[in-house]
């Protein structure tokens, strides 16, 4: 049995030991993973994609094509047609025609059958779609394979089920569709955002004109092929790639009855101005700067995983990313130590490698924006911590990073960086945490970490954010509504709430 004296000596020895060798973990090369690239042999890309209008791939009247590249290698993947105003007009007319003659007259259960069929075909092609998504957008294959595509499929299945049950979603109302919906989606979750937009719209009996983002049009074109394969009546889904001008043509088209936009707050404001007074319905899902609040009674190791998932998932190209970490002062040092160690294990590189955790930044433009804001952060006096991972020579890359010593007044704490960059701030009391979390023009999402159940309810009910996660982050489900407060937009997508945007009630 150890005597008190012996134990005191042992403790003193332990302290000397710590002083000699400050404990540190080393994540090196003791056992390296071999490259494990997902095969792209089964993926067939075309050299050139037309516009998908009226059930056919057609050449653009604009005569213009743009290149889409792989952001991890900068290699060109395909040329894609750019829809001009005349093309958008043709798409809207095709959609209107399909709406009047076929889709709005179809029995709701039959509408559902088409959507189920689309869901099943997408499911069968999930591997191919995941690879295309990763090649065109730069996100790790493990995310496109395990998150994006399964959610896409789930969204179509979920909304197929609603097609003939809408009167149960809105009891005591007669439910009818709206007409042609113009939908504009971003580049961060290309196929998933298409699914979020198209599935509820067509389930409710509307037809759509959808514009994918100019850096990531390929899975939308694959979806067009799936619609063709599913024998969806021509014109129900029209896909018109392009950039801002194409989007403007959709927004300003007089026969479009509803606009749904996911993207930046800046563009959202332009769209709201443009649609004001036109009678067009509008839903906007815009930027965010979510607070992820870690209390001292949180399950700390899981909270660190939540921080990682919150900000480095999809390279931080997530509107609901947990980009502002608010950590209680009493545990701040421990959490930051763990965060440092954890980002050292994040594997950045070939997005097609199944072991890659962090992929490529979506575009040169986005990379420049991230670099600019990070430089501002350094200039403002915040301390930058970065993973020491190797950066590939080609493509667009930014290592997982976080800033400490950040104040509410720093630009990096107020502006959406939309990259793998976290700002860390501390708080002392729950009230202070809530005040800091809400003190921002955005309000899309938030996270709260505590093992104390009552505190979860107390804090989450005070958060001015559309989605609040407790002891987890970035969880999505088609039955759960998603959307923002304040400058993060309005309207909800998913669940019964999401259907509301696509129906007329009387």
């Amino acid at each position, binding site marked *: 049995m150890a005597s008190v004296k012996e134990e005191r000596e042992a403790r003193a020895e332990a302290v000397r030991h710590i002083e000699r060798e400050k404990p540190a*973990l080393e994540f090196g090369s003791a056992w390296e993973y071999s490259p494990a690239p997902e095969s792209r042999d089964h993926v067939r890309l075309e050299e050139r994609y037309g516009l998908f209008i009226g059930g056919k791939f057609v050449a653009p009247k604009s005569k213009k094509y743009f290149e889409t590249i792989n952001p991890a290698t900068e290699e060109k993947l395909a040329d894609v047609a750019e829809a001009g105003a005349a093309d958008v007009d043709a798409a809207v007319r095709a959609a209107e025609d399909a709406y009047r003659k076929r889709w709005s007259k179809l029995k709701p259960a039959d509408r559902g059958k088409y959507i189920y069929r689309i869901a099943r075909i997408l499911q069968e092609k999930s591997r191919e779609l995941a690879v295309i998504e990763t090649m065109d957008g730069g996100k790790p294959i493990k995310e496109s394979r395990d998150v994006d595509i399964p959610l896409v499929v789930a969204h179509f299945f979920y909304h197929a089920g609603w097609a003939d049950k809408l009167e149960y979603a809105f009891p005591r109302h007669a439910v009818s569709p709206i007409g042609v919906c113009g939908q504009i989606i971003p580049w961060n979750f290309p196929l998933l955002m298409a699914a979020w937009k198209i599935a509820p719209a067509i389930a409710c009996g509307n037809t759509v004109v959808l514009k994918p983002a100019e850096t990531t049009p390929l899975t939308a074109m694959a979806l067009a092929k799936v619609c063709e394969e599913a024998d969806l009546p021509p014109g129900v889904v029209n896909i018109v790639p392009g950039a801002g001008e194409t989007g403007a043509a959709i927004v300003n088209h007089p026969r479009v009855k509803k606009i749904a936009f996911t993207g930046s707050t800046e563009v959202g404001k332009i769209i709201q101005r443009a649609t004001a007074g036109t009678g067009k319905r509008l839903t906007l899902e815009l930027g965010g700067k979510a607070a992820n609040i870690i209390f001292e009674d949180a399950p700390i190791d899981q909270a660190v995983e939540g921080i990682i998932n919150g900000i480095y998932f999809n390279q931080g190209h997530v509107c609901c990313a947990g980009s502002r970490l608010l950590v209680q002062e009493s545990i701040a040092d421990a959490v930051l130590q763990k965060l440092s160690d954890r980002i050292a294990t994040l594997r950045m590189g070939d997005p097609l490698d199944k072991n890659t955790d962090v992929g490529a930044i979506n575009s040169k433009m986005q990379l420049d924006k991230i670099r600019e804001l990070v430089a501002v952060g350094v200039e403002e006096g915040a301390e930058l911590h970065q993973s020491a991972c190797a950066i590939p020579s080609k493509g667009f890359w930014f290592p997982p990073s976080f800033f400490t010593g950040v104040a509410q007044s720093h630009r990096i704490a107020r502006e959406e960086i939309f990259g793998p960059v976290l700002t860390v701030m501390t708080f002392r009391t729950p009230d202070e945490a809530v005040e800091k979390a809400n003190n921002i023009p955005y309000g899309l999402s938030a996270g709260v970490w505590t093992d104390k159940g009552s505190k979860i309810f107390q804090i989450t009910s005070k958060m001015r954010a559309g989605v609040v996660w407790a002891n987890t982050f970035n969880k999505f489900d088609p039955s759960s509504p998603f959307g923002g407060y304040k400058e993060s937009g309005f309207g909800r997508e998913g669940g019964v709430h999401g259907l509301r945007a696509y129906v007329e009630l009387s």
Partner: protein
Amino acid sequence: MSSLPRPFDTSRIPRVDAVGIDERAGALAKRSIKKTAKIAGIKLAISMLDLTTLEGKDSEGKVRQLCQKAIRPLPGDPSVPHVAAVCVYPNLVATAKESLAGSGVKVASVASGFPAGLVPLAAKLDDTRLAVESGADEIDMVIDRGAFLSGDYGKVASDILSIKDACGDAHLKVILETGELETYDNVRKASRLAMTYGADFIKTSTGKITPAATPGVVLVMLEAIRDFYFETGRRIGMKPAGGIKTSKQALHLLVLVKETLGDAWLTPDLFRIGASTVTNDLLMQLAKEASGRYQSEDYFTKD
């Protein structure tokens, strides 16, 4: 317990969120281990094996044969390392020691009233001393789960302290029997308790209870080891045991270690895998990597 200098402080032990830990452990199971990484991983796993036989019908003959397997897991292929240790009951330690002499394979013995641990401390100490005197290099003790679950941490702690004392130079592995502790919070607390009072290794299970070394439990224990290391500077070892039957499971365990504790723990000195049947699956996978085909199980010795 009067022998304790102070009561065990559980207030600073972080809580574990079960959903979160399972998610993280599950995500690490998806690491793709191919080609050279797979071969290196399998050889590393073999070198970390505690080849175990803990049956009522164990005999000297059985143990001698197992020891041969431990020294040369794949006869004719010297690139396959010997295992880390052979784990037996105290009565068979002398036999194992003799069979393994000069091989570098250690002898581990369960002691302290294995597997329930519900015998008086004096018996636990005798058990331990017998094993050590017979030549055991390592002692795998069980904690008194009844005492732990009733909140008597002092009893558990003093058992560990006393047995550690009886071990002398032998390394002490403390078995938590996580299947009986049930919650991750308990696993984390018991890990901390064991490390504080003398464990050189913490070990999940006896192999007599399921569930045993689930990925979630292993990850919770690795995280407890990490926190202890940062607080004290001491590197405690980890030994999952029970229910580990396939190469895939073994490689998953190595992934958990690599990405939680890092390079320093990827050695038999700090990580062991307690198993009996996984060896042949590891060898079969190795042969498959070399030839591209799975071989008949009759090419691998069953000892």
